[in-house]
């Protein structure tokens, strides 16, 4: 086990250097730079542009810029945003809890609904239920997130008036930021349950939208995985023993079928990060995704580099955790490790 973790940590370092290289050079390959962007339609003389490039350190050769960035990054300094003039790490950490809260909520409901639906489809294979679930999951998987979000807002917020349109909490609550997770912060705030309820209500629609694709993936994968297991010899043996069908499915088959699902969950984390960009924009959710996109538009190099580094770090760590859990639930791997 320790060997596995150590080798994974070494891999983590390599991944991060790779991510830093790609984010650093890719954004510089895109024409236009922060200076052109700051000047806008007004333009600027050559001297002014040169002076600004010097101020942002953009006049040095690329490889020197990269090593400077890498050197400070190793010391935990990701530089300062060109737009807001605040440290990148502060900007990231203040937004990360919002994305994490939304991502977890999305994953929670996707799992809660996706796995049972997959089981149902597998157990009643080729029935109306199966076709229904598979059809719907195909629709869910292909859903354009922006359109889906707006549709839900129109229905639940504007026409029915059940849920708020966007934001994280009703504007009447001014909750001091402690953990950054609003559900926790409101629970412990002076306003208590009322504020918590408001934060919860604001979380519902974005979580549904962000969780739609993972839900569809989970339902399909659970079904496929369970069907495969149901064809195994030990399932046949269990049936032959005369166990009732529920026992066969939930005790023998499902346990084994869920092992690959854990890996899928790890991969879904990355897909949730991607989906967060759009979801956060529609629902005015103050998270990392929206911030990164804004920074790319502004060619805010330090933010893009730092943000991507942080995000890839998060995804890699979660995948590492998934692998460890995987070894725990899969006895064969446990012994080998």
């Amino acid at each position, binding site marked *: 086990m320790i060997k596995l973790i150590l080798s994974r940590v070494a891999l983590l370092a390599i991944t991060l250097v790779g991510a830093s290289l790609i984010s650093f050079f890719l954004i510089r390959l*895109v*024409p*236009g*730079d922060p200076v*052109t*962007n*700051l*000047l*806008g*339609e*007004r*333009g*600027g*003389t*050559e001297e*002014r542009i040169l002076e*600004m490039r010097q*101020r942002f350190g953009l006049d040095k050769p690329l490889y020197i810029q990269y090593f400077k960035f890498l050197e400070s990054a190793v010391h935990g300094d990701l530089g*300062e945003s060109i*737009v*807001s*003039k*605040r440290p990148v790490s502060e900007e990231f950490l*203040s*937004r990360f809890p919002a994305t994490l809260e939304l991502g977890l909520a999305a994953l929670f409901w996707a799992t809660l609904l996706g796995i049972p639906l997959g089981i149902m489809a597998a157990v009643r294979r080729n029935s109306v239920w199966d076709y229904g679930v598979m059809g719907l999951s195909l629709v869910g998987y292909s859903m354009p997130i922006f359109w889906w979000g*707006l549709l839900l*807002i*129109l229905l*639940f*917020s*504007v026409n*029915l*008036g*059940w*849920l*708020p*349109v*966007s*934001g*994280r909490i*009703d*504007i*009447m609550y*001014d909750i001091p*930021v402690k953990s950054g997770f609003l559900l926790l912060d409101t629970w412990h705030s002076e306003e208590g349950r009322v504020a918590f*309820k*408001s934060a*919860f*209500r604001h979380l*519902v629609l974005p979580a549904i939208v962000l969780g739609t694709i993972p839900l569809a993936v989970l339902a399909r994968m659970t079904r496929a995985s369970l069907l495969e297991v149901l064809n195994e010899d030990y399932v046949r043996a269990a049936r032959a023993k005369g166990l009732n069908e529920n026992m066969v499915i939930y005790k023998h088959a499902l346990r084994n079928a869920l092992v690959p699902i854990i890996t899928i969950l790890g991969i879904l984390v990355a897909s949730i990060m991607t989906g967060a960009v759009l979801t956060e*924009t*529609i*629902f*005015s959710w*103050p*998270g990392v995704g*929206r*911030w990164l996109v*804004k920074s790319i538009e502004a*060619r805010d190099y330090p933010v893009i580099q730092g943000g991507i580094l942080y995000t890839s770090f998060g995804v890699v760590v979660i995948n590492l955790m998934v692998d460890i859990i995987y070894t725990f639930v899969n006895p064969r791997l446990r012994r080998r490790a």
Partner: protein
Amino acid sequence: MFKSALVFLGLFTTSLAFAEKTFVYCSEGSPSTFNPHIASDGTTFNASSHPIYDTLIKFKQGSVDIEPGLAESWKVDKAGTKYTFKLRKGVKFHSNALFTPTRDFNADDVVYSFEVQKDTKHPLAIKNGNYEYFKGMEMDKVVKDIKKVDDYTVEFNLTHPEAPFLANIAMDFASILSKEYAESLVKSGKGLDTLNIQPIGTGPFVFKSYQKDTIIRYTSNPSYWGGKTKIDNLIFSITPDASVRFQKLKAGECHFIADPAPADLENIAKVKGIKLVDREGLNVGYLAMNTEKKPFDNVKVRQAVNHALNRKSYMSAIYMGRAVVAKNPMPPGIWGYNDAVKDYEYNPEKSKQLLKEAGLPDGFTTELWAMPISRPYNPSGKKLAELMQADLAKVGIKVTIQSFDWPIYLEKARKGEHTMIQMGWTGDNGDPDNFLHILLSCAGVKAGSNNARWCNKSYDDLVIKAKQVTEKNKRSDLYKQAQVVFKDQAPWVTVAHAKTFRAMSDKVSGYMIHPFGGDIFDKVDIK
């Protein structure tokens, strides 16, 4: 689970019911800072300079005319290089958890607010702070020095006569910050960066808190020198997507929305309880011809292009009737606008004739760059380019349409790589100089803001002279003459002046669209 299902069913609805009057503005983006000295975008000014700060001179509500702000009166000497301002007495700065002012606003604050922008090595200047707007308006070259005469008198000495100076210091970047606050931040070790996140000003609203990318809170300033505002709380609810803003307005989650999407305007006007207001914007959309490149170095070719384009048809097809055909490079809302200028009429025959005279009877082949982003003065660059392409084909000018990502578009345009290019401008101080000099002077060719790269001696002399005389009537005359030269030499096809729109709850009163496009709420009230 049951409980959350109940919540999901939405037994609770949002309401804007407060004991105090709270005005909610659904804004389009997050401010980059709360320090207007180092900002350059409208979103940031809406959240910083407009509610929190004052300037020496103000623009009258909804107008490009100026009126006294923190300066009660001013005098200009004969040479036009010395401006003396008498400051308002008894103006209080706000306080916050870090700072309680010990004195009223005075000349020290004015000198500090300009000196930090002029001299980036000033001990109170923000490290790495880019005072871009100040430099963009060339204030570093215009202002020689700023002197405190006494506590309530300040003198600005200019390097040369510059009539637009008064309009310049009414702009957002010229906001007055508290010197005492800046000094206290240095002393306490909090650092000057705190100015970017915990602002102190003299304005109608006091900054309370900012939750990043979500909500900005202000309260009314009870001791505001211009009188307390009618609303008690001002809230910015940051909502980046335009359609979602409209839905929030419909659902009653905000009183007022920024930048309604052009596609939504028709629907907005139909919703009960919502009103849509508009006014002519301070902008111009145009097609510039690169006069440094053949065949556009020939004035006849440029005139031919002007005659070839049927601009009236664009107003309905592209602008949906939300713009008027432009004939001058600046909009009619600005003084000095020359209504006597005769526009080129749509006349393909005349256009062909001019091409013949220019030695191009069979026309020619060229490129047209289409604006990649949507602006009120050009909501759909690609479609507009296609209509222009069809019109030009009729007179034998074959055009291929090109477009790039916005930053690349700007960069390439600045370097003059284009031949014909769509561009536009929204004025920021209401002075004719802000259009006629920036966009068409010889200096503008160097700066990259003159997209026709047109440097005409007689035009340039007129707009430079108009900067140097301080008398408004004389300036107005000079600008009118300059517009005649412009029209005759035809470096652009002037396309449109677009209207700007705002949507709000019909409970809102007292709002007037600011010609420069910013949103200002010190006069609003809600029923």
